């Protein structure tokens, strides 16, 4: 009996060590040199319970909101936590993960992701999951049927070493140094573009109405996001940043109805700052995303909105202040160096 217990214990320890080793090699071999990895990995490095506002959403969100500028203007701390083409079900798990480390007062969800109808590629799913730490939340995420992962996908998502093992030939100092912790993300999730590529479509895109439907699963997971926020006494706000290509009146109305039913604030900057956005200058890809000039306008608008609707106290934590001051300084330096656009395309 004693021997049997010993064998079971040894075997269990063996399995645990094996899993830990796979996780270690996964951490070493995951590519860490892309912008998205910095967003997710950098989020873990934020000081515990230091963020006042958490922005969630797809690329239209993290290309439009500048947390460093919000800090400078309003004095509240925030982070733009998102991923390209992200779906609401991915945001739900991302929020669960975020709440392990942060207790934001407000969660702002950019709603473009509720209508994403193009393919949610494996690469884009991996841009979140690969960089999340191994935990029950990550396991639940991988298991969630909404993602439609095959068994092989699930194995390689749980232990990315199965996918990235061929990188053993290109391991560098960064891979080793960032295995147990990444440097802070000085952009706080914002990804900037200084390119200008004008939107050439109708300027009254919000008046052109067409059928708009929430994605399959969207409402379910938005409700789940709403539920966690309620449970954690976090104010949830819905936001739509300007987007000439992907947004329209019907989508706006659908979100309005959803927000009204759940008594959630909804700010649609497509109508609120319609005249403020110059679609010839403020987009980097013909109206899908905003560039730095558009992002600054959105951030200023949000800054005023937050001033009017939320009373967020400025932190007194010196470490957090230093971190956000540094983020603003770096942003400002980069912004100044790009004062005049490198290339202006005219219509």
């Amino acid at each position: 009996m004693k021997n049997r217990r010993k064998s079971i214990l040894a075997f269990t320890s063996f399995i645990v060590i094996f899993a830990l080793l796979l996780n270690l090699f996964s951490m070493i071999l995951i590519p860490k040199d892309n912008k998205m990895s910095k967003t997710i990995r950098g989020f873990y490095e934020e000081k515990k319970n230091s963020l006042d506002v958490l922005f969630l959403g797809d690329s239209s969100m993290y290309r439009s909101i500048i947390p460093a500028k919000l800090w400078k203007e309003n004095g509240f701390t925030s982070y733009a936590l998102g991923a390209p083409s992200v779906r609401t079900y991915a945001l739900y798990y991302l929020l669960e993960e975020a709440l392990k480390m942060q207790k934001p007062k407000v969660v702002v969800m950019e709603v473009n992701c509720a209508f994403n109808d193009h393919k949610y590629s494996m690469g884009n799913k991996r841009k979140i999951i690969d960089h999340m730490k191994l935990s029950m939340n990550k396991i639940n995420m991988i298991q969630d049927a909404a993602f439609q992962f095959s068994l092989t996908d699930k194995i390689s998502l749980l232990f990315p070493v199965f996918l990235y093992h061929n990188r053993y030939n290109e391991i560098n100092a960064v891979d080793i140094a960032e295995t147990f912790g990444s440097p802070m993300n000085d952009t706080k999730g914002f990804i900037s573009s200084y390119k200008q590529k004008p939107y050439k479509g109708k300027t009254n895109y919000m008046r052109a109405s067409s059928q708009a439907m929430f994605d399959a699963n969207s409402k379910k997971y938005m409700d789940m996001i709403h539920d966690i926020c309620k449970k954690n006494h976090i104010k949830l706000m819905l936001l739509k940043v300007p987007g000439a290509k992907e947004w329209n009146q019907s989508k706006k109305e659908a979100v309005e109805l959803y927000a009204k039913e759940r008594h959630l604030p909804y700010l649609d900057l497509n109508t609120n700052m319609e005249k403020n956005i110059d679609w010839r200058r403020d987009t980097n890809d013909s109206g899908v995303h905003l560039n730095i000039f558009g992002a600054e306008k959105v951030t200023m608008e949000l800054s005023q909105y937050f001033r009017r609707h939320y009373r967020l106290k400025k932190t007194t934590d010196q470490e957090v202040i230093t971190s956000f001051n540094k983020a603003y300084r770096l942003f400002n330096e980069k912004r100044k160096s790009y004062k005049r656009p490198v290339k202006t395309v005219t219509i």
Partner: protein
Amino acid sequence: MSLISLPFMLLVTASCVLYYLAPKQWRWCILLLANVIFYVAASQALIIFLIGSILSVYIGGLAINKQIKLQKATIKSLEKDQKKAYKAMMKKRKQLILIVVLAINIGILCYLKYYGFFAGNLNAINALLHVNVNIAVKKFVLPLGISYYTLMAISYMVDVYRGKYEASPQLGKVALYLSFFPQMTEGPISRFDQLADQLYAGNEFDIIKFKSGLYLILWGLFKKLVIADRAALYVNPVFSGMHGGFTAFLAVALYTLQIYAEFSGAMDIVRGIGYLFGVHMEKNFEQPFFSKSIAEFWRRWHRTLGTWLKDYVFYSISLSKMNMNLNRSVKKHMKGNFGRFILSAFPLFFVWFFNGFWHGASWKYIVYGLYYYLIMMMGLLLAPVFTKIKDTWHLHEQRKGYRLFCILRTVLIVFGGMLIFRAHSLDDALQMLLRIFTMQETDILAHGLTLVDFGILIWGLVLMFIIAGLKERRVNLFALFDQKSLLLRYGIILIIGVSIIVFGIYGHGYQASDFIYGEF
């Protein structure tokens, strides 16, 4: 469904769990079900050919059984003169059944595998003779494992015919024997009397066999994914290009090691799976690179094919009337070494011809088989000269230096064989051989393998040869391993397991390589 694919591993796991959960008398049904699932997944409708083989040997075997029983029952009541005639008649009957069944099985194999080869060669002959007949050269998709299960079907029929054992009255047993799923891809070419009872018995769970099975599978995966497929990263581009010198020589050497690591690795996986079900299967390799001669090499390399050729080609031809007549004539007219040479040369020619031809429908493979035949025949013919040289130079066979020389000589000859085997054509093989000696090329890091890869490859090869060396010294590795402390055992398993996952050549970024012997 490759031996190293996830669906295959899941099939093994599921069938293993169900096997031990099922009542003993139904366990063979679980195996048969797993065989069907595996075969349908791999070859879909082509299972019809396997079913055809199973039914033909089952019915044929029973028919021979019936003749044997009838002969036994009748012969007692016959007079001495009648007995001889009756025996001859019964032998012819049995022969007829045997020929029909063999014709069905060999016919299917020849039609599917060799039709294109025969048609192409007949067209070439017609063109030479200016005969205006052109046969369409067709290529068929081969049912998985046809080269293996056909040889097993032949061995079953011939053994029943020779009276080695009785044909099985249980169709399930014959079906299990011919279709046991782990061995369908690369063999081994098992024998009915070694395998069938084990498959049909409903084995009890044996922890020692089970653990041995897991160790073998792990080691097989290491050899395939870490060593063989890494060597292939260098071998494939070099054989596809116009390389020479040391670069090409290394490709030949690495291909030899690749095919060994891959084929023996596959056999480890297959035998390991067998052990999970409590089934012991024949070894196909016995440290071939420790051989001191080519004959010894072939006793250690692909052993189940070698013994099959010995039992069913060599003996059949040796005992044929034509060979008997030749024997008598040679013994009468030729004495000494040359006589012995002639006596061996005739049946061995067929053995090596079939060895080559079995590997593929191409002249390249026939030449591959005959290359070894020529080497062996030369060795036999020149044996007195070699003995004289050894005596003159006082070379003692037991001396380490001489043994090492013999091993190196054998390895170099094997390299020659592997060059023919791997090259795209005979002409390519010859050109590459010439380039090895005439070109100066040493840039080994420019062909798919980095320095790190070479490091991993060398580490894998060293490990493989240490284990082979221990086996050569008759060390029982399983027993030795099990005697070690739990910590050491788990530590070794962790190192091998993690090495396979991290350094294995699989998945994204690599082209998955099929098993070379899975194509035959």
